[in-house]
């Protein structure tokens, strides 16, 4: 079945998309408190040198996320 969302690892460098929701509850707490809210636009800036972490931008704020964390943010297609 085709997924109805993408996640950050699906984004190309410099691509951006709007968030729908965050699937992991504990992480959702942390990220929403940091201002990653449903509907905000996330821009993928780069991956970390050894992989497994993402450098993203949300409303001009730069945030580093792990792969699992990045994968639990569901984005619009």
């Amino acid at each position, binding site marked *: 079945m085709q997924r109805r969302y993408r996640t950050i690892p699906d984004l190309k460098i410099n691509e951006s998309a709007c968030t729908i929701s965050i699937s992991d509850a504990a992480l959702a*707490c*942390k990220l*929403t408190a940091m201002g990653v809210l449903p509907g905000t636009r996330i821009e993928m800036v780069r991956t*970390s040198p*050894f992989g497994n972490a993402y450098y993203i931008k949300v409303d001009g704020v730069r*945030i580093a996320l792990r792969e699992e964390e990045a994968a639990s943010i569901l984005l619009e297609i």
Partner: protein
Amino acid sequence: MMQQEEDRTPRVALVGNPNSGKSTVFNLLTGLRQQTGNFPGVTVEIKKGRMRFPSGKEATLIDFPGTYSLYPTSSDEKLVAAVMCDPQNPFFPDALIYIADVTHLERHLLLLTQLLDLHLPVILALNMSDTALEMGIKVNTAKLIERLGIPVISISGRKEDNIQKLLSEVEKTLKNPIRTAENVFFYKLSDGEKQIADAVRHNLGIDNPYRALLLVHHRDWLPFLQPQQREILGTIAETKDFQSLRAQVDETLDRFDRFVPIVRDAIQQPPVFPSTATDRIDAVLTHRWWGPFIFVAVMLLIFQAIFDWSGYPMDAIENGFGILSDGVQSTLGEGWFTELLTDGILAGLSGILVFVPQIALLFLLIAILEEVGYMARVVFMFDKTMRRFGMNGRSVISLISGSACAVPAIMSSRTIGNWQERLITVMVTPFISCSARIPVYLVLIGLAVPAVKVAGILSAQTLVFGSMYALGVVAALLSGWAMKKWLRTREPSFLAIELPEYRMPHWKNVWLSVWEKVVAFVSGAGKIILVVSIVLWALSRYGPGDSIALATEQAHTEAIAMRLDSNQTEDFVQQRRLEASFAGKMGKSFEPLIRPLGYDWKIGIALLTSFAAREVFTGTLAVLYNMGSEEGDINNRDENEAKATLRSKMKTETFSDTGKPVYSLATAMSLLVFYALAMQCFSTLAVVRRETGGWKWAALQFFAMSLLAYFGAWAVYEIFS
């Protein structure tokens, strides 16, 4: 609600999100009137300082760790929730200053609205107004005052703008606290939450519904709850089918929905965030290849700087103490009291202060990296690497700091949210070669490793020195890996870290941070070194019964028989006295245990005395090899010359039974490995105990590291002999 005793100094709390400039404002308001209260023996964990109002009255300012909300994910952040939920807490504030970064106000007000719902008197300080001005951001403070119902002031921590106004506003609030009215709340509890808050009020008498709700959320860890209270809260949560995480997210979203419009209404922002210098710098500094490469280069540069620069002040300190010690000797004359002063107290003080330049320099460079925002990038780049070894990207900062002194390094692990990752960081940080190991390395390497070049360029001595650092790093990572295999928790672990804008360092912050770390070292590690030094002096001067007197007498007779001159006699007598002293007896009884590592009883004494603080090692050997009588005191001369004398004395040592030299390459290498791996720092153990909440982990760390050092040294001795 709140008890306002007349005679106590009012408490003001400084709260806000990470990177909002809280520490800058704290430093500005308190200057050097700070107390970290962070070190062994003191159980307080919060930074406090005194602030003075224009009227001359004073208040205690408490700096809380930066946090995004009252739903914490690290022990650092838990502190904020634990204090704000507990009016009985000794840190519970009479007024709060909430620092928000005005250039990102839309995401900096969540915690503020939570604090308002606890009906605490808050003043909102909009920080970084200088940057806002540059960016063309216009703030309508009057509108914020009206909509939030609290005092709002634009300030700049960096330009020191409006600080007086902030102070007088705080004083006004202390006199006449403005609280949100009893029945006004920013967040409207859902029906389910209302029932829960009601139940808590009935059972525990908590009137504020939001506080009641927080108690239910945090019932498992809030330190002030009684067991039966925990049970009651648990039952309430269960019967109402309370889903804490869900509720937290819903509440957070609801709060954002309510305050973002207020912010948008009051702030005029340029429509897009322009690509800034930070983006361009990060394109290089966090680049796939350049990033790690630059990191390694920066680290090498730092260590190079330390070795090149800190030699001069260190020599000056040692020479200064030498002169002082001579002065004491010549004014007081000989006697036990003079010896106590010179060999015990002054030697100990010199042993502490001599490390200060190096520690200060290292922490200066670390503080600069932190201030400009580079450390967060390091966390980002090495998170994965560190996770392999059971740690977290944030652990890199602790490990780097560990190369100066493990005591402040371990304390910096508090930002790691996951308990297991934090524990592993605390446990392995002491493996990193700290500045106290350097003199030991230098003496031993000078003794055993020939000054030749390897492959024509690198000196063999430098190579061995570097390998000792590498050994520490490898030992730290491998033990982290082993602990990860052994411990398994399902507690969530987060990276989720904000990468702040690059900024020029604010020097006031940098100096204060260095000052704080140096004070941590002097008051934490220093006290113990001093005590050890005095105990050591006593142990080597006195012996059981009249053994010393007997040994002296006998030595004199033998010396006459051997026709020694007066200097040689003095040496000989000194040595015999030492052998007869408590320290000598202990070393001798210790010898069988350390013989497999290639050590004799004198090294045994040095090991024993350096158990509590490893820097005592060289000092002990200097006493044992009795360097005093020939050319004056060790402190008295140029450092290199003194070390050379120590070395030549050590070189001529032989085992009394076999006649073989004690300091072969094998012994020296074995000692090096021992010192690289052993846990020989009582102050570190004390900090570990405090940070892990008991002796269990400190004891484990001590035994594991000692065993590793013992067997490692044994193996190395076998290989080289």
